[in-house]
């Protein structure tokens, strides 16, 4: 019995990369596992961080902005309102942070086993999926609590709920598309990560997570809608609770834009990856 080995050149072009990524999808688990392990390595509290991380800032913001300062929340309990916005925002922000570090964190893999590098940004995002699962669990608990307490059904009961899943997916794809660029830029320097950290802080403020879009003065609202995340977050809250407005055209535009950016990102990544890896 002889084993047959076939050595073939890699598929050319973007389509080839996509095929290749699909063929190597088994590696995703391996890459994700590595990312999870690295998350809290060398820390004393270890996995406890997983719970401290999402809960503390949330509770505090709810206390200060909701209870103390009485910021509007489209008629929802402020905590629930903030939680919903945070879920969809953090899918974007944590995925982007981890995706950006994809190449830099997996350098040691370059020489060891062949893998399409395009698999790394997505695989490295695994910690953010774990974060999402935790947040969704907290959200379900909070929803149950407020529903019982107020005797009012906050969640809407129609097909629009499916759109919420779409919004989550869109925010994930947007992060992935950007990661194809940022992971290349961030491969060599840590500056990229720090600059991104500062940018995310500003971006968070400009996205209606802590406040409803309806509270933005009318003359600025048009500008706010230029932020794709604003549309995604508003869509998410609208499809869950029926609050705020549904910006159909803007949502379609955002979805199309994200798909284009994804394609552009993959093209850029495919062109540059060989050089980035070879220069090491």
């Amino acid at each position, binding site marked *: 019995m002889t084993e047959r080995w076939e050595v073939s050149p890699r598929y050319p072009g973007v389509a080839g990369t996509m095929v290749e990524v699909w063929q190597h999808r088994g590696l995703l688990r391996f890459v994700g596992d590595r990312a999870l392990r690295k998350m809290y390595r060398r820390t004393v509290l270890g996995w406890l961080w997983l719970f401290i991380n999402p809960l503390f800032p949330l509770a505090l913001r709810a206390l200060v902005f909701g209870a103390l300062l009485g910021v509007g929340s489209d008629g929802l309990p402020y905590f629930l309102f903030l939680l919903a916005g945070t879920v969809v925002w953090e899918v974007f922000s944590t995925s982007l942070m981890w995706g950006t570090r994809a190449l830099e964190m997996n350098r040691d893999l370059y020489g060891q086993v062949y893998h399409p590098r395009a698999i790394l940004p997505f695989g490295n995002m695994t910690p953010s999926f774990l974060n999402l699962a935790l947040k969704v669990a907290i959200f379900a608990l909070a929803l149950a609590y407020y529903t019982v307490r107020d005797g009012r059904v906050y969640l809407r009961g129609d097909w629009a709920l499916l759109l919420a899943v779409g919004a989550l997916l869109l925010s994930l794809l947007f992060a992935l598309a950007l990661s194809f660029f940022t992971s290349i830029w961030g491969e060599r320097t840590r500056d990229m990560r720090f600059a991104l950290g500062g940018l995310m802080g*500003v971006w968070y403020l400009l996205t209606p997570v802590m406040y409803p879009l309806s509270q933005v003065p009318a003359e600025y609202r048009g500008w706010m809608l230029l932020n794709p995340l604003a549309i995604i977050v508003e869509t998410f809250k609208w499809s869950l609770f029926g609050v705020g407005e549904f910006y159909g055209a803007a949502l379609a535009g955002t979805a199309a834009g994200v798909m284009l950016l994804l394609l552009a990102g993959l093209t850029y990544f495919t062109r540059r990856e060989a050089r980035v890896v070879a220069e090491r």
Partner: protein
Amino acid sequence: MSNTAAEWRIASDAQDGVGDRAAEVWQYRQILWFFSVKALQTLYAKTHLGVWWIFLRTLVPLLVASFVYGSVMNIASGGVPYLVFFLAAQVPWNCFDGPLVRGSRGLEVNRGLLVKLYVPRIILPLGGMTPGIVEPVIVALVLACTLIYYRINDGIWYVASEPRPLAAVAALVLVLAFTFSVTLFTSVWQARARDARFVLRYVVGFWVFFTPVIYPLSQVPEDLRWLMHLNPLTAPVETFKWAVLPGMEHSWTWFLYTVAVTVVTFFAGVRFFLRAESETMDKL
């Protein structure tokens, strides 16, 4: 060849006791200068924008936050435009935030140097803190520009009728002293465990919400204000605003409370630092 044997004397600069240590730090003050300049350069080294980068990084988040908090979330600001209120509170707050985070890295960052030469280690967190002074200075300059802008645009000086520069400076110095005292603990923790950095980031992120920086103290229900004042940063922030802006209130009693807390933290910090120095730092 002369016959005199060479005389060797081993002189150690390390001495015990807080007073001796203070004298030692004074002896090594030029090294403090060296570390400060080095830390200052890392602020903008290797960036394309150079020094402008510091301005951009400090100002853009502040201006955006001021717009969101003031115009969108409509947070009260005690009778002055929100931007003025917010910037005035950010000056003392930035004397804490930046210097604390930077000073805490002091030991960790200079680990390699510690093996090569002797310096009183207490100099490292102090040297690391110094570039943190840049940000409050920038914020203060922008505050001044904002005041002038409102003077021209609205015809109103949003400045206290009798500004109290001494009180303002005293408040800032107090914040810096408090920050240094805290750094004595945090720099050691951070050299020991990576968590410390995360914890610190969290605590500082928390702390700003419990300090009247984004909202005035008058927003807090009266019976809970003492709770806010237990936070040692509340009093100096209030004093600074009172010294600069019109129509603000503050309390010297709570200011003295912060002075007391700072003194206690400082001595406890020095003790802690000196002990940790012999126990763990040589194992870095």
